[in-house]
């Protein structure tokens, strides 16, 4: 949820159209939304899925998100699709909880002893379960994974921050392999820049190295903040 929040603050990204796929809004919300978000929410409820495009970039969350969820009970149409709780992308100032969960779980607060949500389960998919039998939710997720592959295929500079490519994450390994080695017109040799303090991570990525096709390199900055600072400087000063 960190990057969602940061992007939301730019006013050039919205959870409504910023996740790469269109996600129906959850109708169970009585969330303390305010301002534009509430208006957007209400307008979309009235007008269906029509909305103005806000997001200028996409955030592809391959293992789900805490502001996405599925109902325990299917909707009247019988669908059990993933829904978006817009409030979940907005943290209440100073509050310790994510806003959406204050609404989507009965009595869910710090003092509560209620231990499960009653009608909405956040949609988080642990590794190794991606290939579970296909259902509506998984189809939704596959679309996001497909988009991620397209992104990896069509870019030639990939910065990997804080991702360790654990050996057990077979799906991620396959995604990287497909994304890195599919040839896309106009894409040069790909540079994959690893930002990690653990040398083992670089070694794991080096198995993707192939001369002229994919170059794996360690960032001179092993700290994510330092790397971001250096990256921002290069983009700011480039013509």
């Amino acid at each position, binding site marked *: 949820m*960190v990057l969602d929040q940061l992007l939301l603050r*730019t006013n050039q990204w919205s959870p409504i159209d910023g996740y790469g796929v269109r996600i129906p809004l959850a109708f169970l919300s009585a969330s303390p939304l305010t301002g534009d978000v509430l208006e957007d929410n209400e307008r979309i409820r009235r007008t269906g899925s029509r909305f103005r495009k806000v997001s200028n970039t996409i955030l592809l969350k391959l*293992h789900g998100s805490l502001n996405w969820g599925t109902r325990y009970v299917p909707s009247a149409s019988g669908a059990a699709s993933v829904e978006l709780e817009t409030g979940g992308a907005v*943290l209440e100032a100073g509050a310790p909880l994510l806003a959406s969960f204050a609404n989507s779980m009965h009595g869910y607060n710090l003092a509560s002893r209620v*231990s499960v*949500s009653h009608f909405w389960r956040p949609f988080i998919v*642990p590794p190794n379960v991606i290939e579970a039998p296909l259902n509506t939710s998984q189809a939704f997720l596959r679309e996001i994974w497909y988009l991620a592959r397209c992104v990896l295929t069509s*870019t030639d500079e990939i*910065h*990997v921050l804080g991702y360790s490519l654990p050996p057990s994450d077979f799906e991620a390994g396959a995604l990287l392999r497909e994304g890195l080695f599919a040839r896309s017109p106009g894409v040069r040799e790909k540079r994959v820049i690893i930002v990690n303090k653990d040398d083992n991570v670089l070694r794991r990525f080096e198995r993707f190295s192939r001369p002229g096709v994919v170059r794996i390199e360690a960032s001179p900055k092993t700290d994510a903040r330092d790397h971001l600072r250096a990256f921002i400087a290069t983009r700011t000063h480039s013509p």
Partner: protein
Amino acid sequence: MEPPPPAVCFVLGAGFSCAFSPGAPTMADFLARAAANGAYKPESDHRTLASIAEKYFGSTRDVNIEDLASFLVLDLGSDPAKEKELRNLAYDQLIQIICQTLGYIHGPAMSSDPADEFSSFATLLAREGIPAITFN
């Protein structure tokens, strides 16, 4: 003629969130940290989850939550003993703990002004249309 600038994307993992909120838990120490801040109550509210963690991972706290989550939703067939474990309920409890713990960790950092480099990074992504892929 200069070549066009490279098309860039970012792949982010848990380490990115940890850099944003120093002190954020890792997958390995998540439950221990959640127990420390009161989000995880293995002796009361989350006994179902705790008993499965203890039985299959040998500890109620020192368990990698990614491994635990995968274990809880993996379908390897059923039997009456497994039904009694209420793995669905345990998974819900785990999700609740994750939500609450992340709220504790990132809420205060997000409610104040985030560090310059993170705000500038998000602005850059949004302005230049740089996609980001997250694995966490």
